[in-house]
Structure formats: C-alpha cells, structure tokens
C-alpha cells in the first residue's frame, strides 16, 4: 500500500489520482464478517426511517412530546457523543503543548475518531431539526442569536471540525503522497491544536450550559449552576476512557496495522492514561460533592432519584476511579480496560440523567425513546465505524507514516 502511494505521488496527472481513488474506494477484505452482518441491515433500516421522518415529521418516528422536546438524539448522540470525543483535545494538549511524546502514536487515531464523531453527531443534530433548511441562518449571519448558548455550541462544532481536519490532514496527504501539501499542512498543526483546545474547552462546557435555563425542569440533584464545569471536567476522563477502550479494540481488529514498537509501548501508554483519568475523576467527584453540599441536596438522597444519583456517583465514578488508581500501581491492563468501560457507562448515565432522565422527572408521562430512535442512533454509530475502518485501512493512522516522510525531516 505504501509503495502505491509513492508511485502516485510521482506522476501528478489527474488520471492516475482518480484511478487511485477509485481503487481505494473499493472495500477490502472479507465481506461477511459478523460486524457487517449486523450493521448493514441496521444502517439500511435507519436510512429508511430517516426518509420517513422527513416526510411525516419528527413525531412520526420519535416519542418526543411538547413537554420533552429533546430526547435520545440530543441527549445521547450529541451530548454524550461529544463528551466521548473529548479525547482529542486532551491528547493534543498532552502531546503538542506539554510535549509528552510517549502518547504521540495515539494522536492520529484519536483525532480521526474525534473528527468523525463530530461529523456524525452534528449530522444527528440535523436529523433532529424540524426546519433544517434554515440551518444556514445562524451560519451566514443574517440572524445571529448571540445570546444563545446553542449558537455558541453550533459555531464551535463547525470550527472544531475544521481544526481537527487540519490536525488530521497530514495523514491524508501521506496517503495521497502529496509531499508539498503535507509540509504546509503539518506546519499548521500547532495553530490548529491551540485553536482546537480553546474551542473544546468552551463547547464541552457549553453543552452543559445549554441546560442552565431549564432550571425548573431538571432534577435538583443534576441541576446546578456548575453544570458547565462539571461537563468540562468529566469530558477529560470520558475522552481518555474512550481512547483506552477504542485502543483495546483497535489493537485486536487492526493488529496488522500496528508496528511491533507500538505494541510494546501500548502498556505504558495505557498505564499513563489511567493515572490521568483517576486524577480527573477525583477532581470531578470533589466538585460534585461541593455542589451537593452547596445546594443542600440532602433531602433528595433518600428518594428513588437519590439512589439513582448515588449509583451514578459511586458505581460509575468512585469505583472506576479506585480501579484506575489501583491498576496503575499494579500495571494491570485488563483492570484498566474494565475501569474505562465502567467510566464510559457512567458518562452515558450522567449525560442522560441531565438531558433526558432527570429532565421533567416529575412529569406524569415519561419519555422513553422509540425503537426507531434507537435504530437511527445505531445506524449513525455504525456508519461512523464503517468510515473509521475505511480510513484506518488506507491512511497511515495506526501504522507508521510512509518512508518518505522520515527522509524529508
């Protein structure tokens, strides 16, 4: 594959580039893998449902109501998905700003993951818009709702996608064998990183700030004026847990892509990440405790919602935090992975508690997503994985950059 890219780079006439792209578009490897067998029907069904929704309205496939206008697509796809994509800004901070070179091999795959997550989850946001053709209004500026947190978040999504695309673009250039472009693009990396971290800080917290005005609708155990900060801090360990989790899957599925050297380094990397997770979770728990005391929430603890809150805080923050600390000391990779999965479940729980479960918790009729909403969500996730796989198999993301990159240095 590498050789191919180099050959293409040599003759620059358009023809062969198109041939090359056409060739690259073809699927590789076996077709009937279990993943394909499960994902293809769901993606097709999801596509059908999306068509149906655009003809008959959002209510035709969702269980949303006048009281509960945001459901699974916002609460899970957008709010939770973006928290999981937080790994990219944390890792680029560690590698490019703090120069922790140990983690360099993870940057590309994490940025790719983050970029795709934003593309697809912002895409999911479009599905949820009743009048998506007006989405250009806040972009082209004929009506700027600058007092709106959603306006801020939407703009940050777009700009951040651009920043991540720039951060990832050297890999695309290497794939196409475009040496000059690669040079220019990688010169822009540090700027994109700084811009990207700033944007991430603001929109990770901004997703929490969206709910500040819904003060009377969210259960007091989850509502506080500090939601933005809590969202920001939890996005650190949400993102890193995702990196750990995704890494453990990639190293099996794409083992042919990963060089011997990286395989060896993996242990140390995961160990380091687990420590960062543990510290961030400690800070997060401490803040949750302060908020809890500050808001005088004792009265709610001995209620069903209170138990639910304790389950989230103890079962899915405190316990994985202890596991992270413990397995860092013992260098137990398996345990770290378990802790990462628990943490991710905890993040899903937390985001859904703020946006869906705790929203209108006192309403007589509760919102439960319809099977169609769940199917569309799964279809979005599967499509993302398909694209991810396509890119990994072609571009130097997990594997080493082609030889010419090193020569040029």
């Amino acid at each position, binding site marked *: 594959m590498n050789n191919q890219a180099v050959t293409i780079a040599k003759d620059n006439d358009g023809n062969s580039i198109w041939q090359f792209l056409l060739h690259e578009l073809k699927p590789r490897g076996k077709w009937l893998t279990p993943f394909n067998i499960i994902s293809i029907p769901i993606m097709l069904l999801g596509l059908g449902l999306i068509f149906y929704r655009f003809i008959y309205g959002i209510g035709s496939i969702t269980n949303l109501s006048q009281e509960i206008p945001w459901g699974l697509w916002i609460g899970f796809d957008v709010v939770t998905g973006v928290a999981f994509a937080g790994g990219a800004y944390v890792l680029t901070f560690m590698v490019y700003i*703090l*120069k922790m070179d140990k983690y360099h091999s993870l940057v590309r795959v994490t940025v790719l993951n983050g970029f795709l997550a934003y593309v697809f989850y912002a895409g999911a946001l479009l599905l949820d818009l*009743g009048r998506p053709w007006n989405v250009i209004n806040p972009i082209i500026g004929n009506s700027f709702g600058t007092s*709106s947190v*959603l306006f801020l978040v939407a703009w940050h999504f777009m700009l951040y996608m651009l920043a991540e695309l720039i951060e990832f673009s050297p890999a695309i250039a290497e794939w196409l064998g475009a040496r000059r472009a690669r040079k220019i693009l990688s010169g822009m990396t540090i700027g994109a990183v700084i811009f990207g971290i700033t944007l991430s800080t603001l929109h990770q917290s901004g997703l929490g700030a969206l709910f500040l005005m819904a003060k009377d609708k969210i259960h007091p155990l989850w509502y506080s004026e500090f939601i933005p900060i809590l969202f920001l801090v939890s996005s650190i360990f949400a993102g890193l847990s995702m990196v750990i989790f995704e890494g453990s899957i990639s190293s099996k599925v794409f083992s042919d892509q990963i060089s011997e050297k990286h395989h060896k380094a993996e242990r140390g990397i995961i160990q380091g990440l687990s420590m960062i997770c543990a510290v961030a979770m400690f800070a997060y728990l401490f803040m949750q405790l302060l908020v809890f005391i500050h808001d005088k929430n004792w009265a709610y603890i001995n209620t069903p919602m209170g138990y639910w809150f304790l389950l989230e805080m103890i079962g899915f923050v405190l316990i994985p935090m202890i596991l992270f600390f413990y397995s860092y000391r013992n260098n137990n990779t398996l345990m770290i992975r378990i802790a990462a999965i628990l943490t991710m479940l905890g993040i899903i729980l937390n985001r859904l508690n703020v946006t869906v479960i705790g929203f209108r918790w006192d309403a007589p009729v509760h919102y439960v997503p319809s099977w169609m909403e769940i199917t569309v969500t799964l279809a979005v996730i599967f499509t993302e994985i398909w694209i991810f796989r396509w890119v990994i198999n072609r571009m130097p993301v997990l594997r080493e950059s082609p030889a010419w990159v090193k020569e040029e240095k």
Partner: protein
Amino acid sequence: MSINRRNFFKTVGIAGVTLAVGKSAGANSPESEKTEFRGMLYDATRCVGCLECEIACAKSHNLPEPTDELQVDVLRKTSEVKRCVINYHTTSKGEVLVRNQCMHCNEPACAAACLTQAMYKTKEGPVIWRADKCMGCRYCMVSCPFDVPKFEYFSANPKIEKCDMCYDRIMKGQIPSCAEACPAEALIFGTRRELLAEARKRIAENPTEYVDQIYGENVAGGTGYLYLSPAPFNEVGFNTKLQNTSYPALSKGFLYSVPSVFVLLPTLLLGIHKATKDNQSKDEENE
C-alpha cells in the same frame, strides 16, 4: 420526603412573591416599566368562561376552533393547534377560571435560547416567532419556564405555535383579537405600566376579592401578561416555584466568560508550548 420539600418551596415562593410585590409597590418604579412594553391584564374574577377569546384566537390565526367542553378540574392544554386555553379550577375560594397562553416575558428565555432570533422580543412587547428564521431545534421549548412554545411534530414543514399577542394587529393599531372578543372585559390590552397601575387599583379597591398579588409583575423577571385572581396562584394552575429573576440571566455568566477564555487560553497554551519547546532541544513537533 420530596413532597414536603415541594410544599416548602411553594411556601417560600409565595412568601418571596409577596415580599417582592410589597417592595416594588412602595418604590413604584421597577425597571421594566420604563420601556413601555404593551401587555394584557387578565382578571379571573371577571372571566365568565364563554371561550369567546379562544374562538377569536383560532379564527385570526387559521387554527381549528375549540371543540372540547370546559369542565371543572379537567385541565385543557395549549397545543400546536391551540394558542390559548381557559381552565376551571377548584380552589379554596370556590371555582375560578384562568386563562393560559404565552406570558410575553420582559426577558424571555425562549428568545435568549433561540440561535436564529426566530423567537424575538419586539420593542412593543409581544414575543413573536418568525418562520423564515426558525430551524426547528426546539431549544426555546427546553428553555421556556412556562412550557409555552409548541411544535408540530407531525409535519414535514413544522412550525412553532404560540401566542404572539396578535402582533400584526397591534402594528395596525388594533387590539389583540382575544381582548376585542371578550364580552366581560376580563382581558384588557394596554401598556404594561397602565395595566399594573390598574391591577393595583383593583386590589386596593376590593381587597377582599383578590389575593394581594399580581402574577406576572415579578415572576421570571416580569411578564407582559398580568393576572389578578381571587385564589392563591398555586391553586389556579400556576407554578409558583418559578424564580422572580430573569431566566436568560442564568446562562449570562457562562456567555460572558467566553470572550476572555478565547483570549486568555490560547495565550496560555502558546506560552506553555514555547516553554516546553525550549526545554526540548531536539524537538520534532508539528506532525
């Protein structure tokens, strides 16, 4: 336990409202009165429950006329085809009729939430919705403390429906069709300042007939709709737990911090980047 807590809140809420009313009645110049917003005053003691306002509203906005009967304690709700409703509540003061629709807040949460300014507080007072701008995100519905905006979930070209105080009519110099239709003068239109004065006068002249509170004077930072009622407001279907300060203020702190983060954070990051770069003699960044 949670019920106790809620009752507790209610009491605090009522106490808070009464205190605030007492105070501003003395000072007599709350800020909102300077702007000359138009508003409506609904007097529950005058309403006869004829539903003429609902019918007029439906007619002037091309919505189906109400067909459901008015029944005591059967809650009728506003919806995507009904911008206002009258309800019959059993209270400690007997049966009381109360109307519900958009409150036309002085500082509307819906308009602050809207990222396209489709929800818009006009300088005349009404809060209106503009189809050519709205992208149907429903963030206004999430944010409105009164749950007013309604969405057409079963349409490919869905609209947000809510009372617009007949903004077009107001601009033509007419009064809202509901106020015009009301045979009992339960619903009157005017500047918010005049209406507040009128409401206070009615309470002062008939202290036994009204509770000593004008709902809308302070709730959510003050609203364009003002209510007089013979029974405490929590008994006639109002959420008296709502705060008396503006809702957009809740996210202001966050929004105000954005510009400074945008200036300070990149500078800081650049500084650290430079510092770590100097430490690293053989650095190979930008990859």
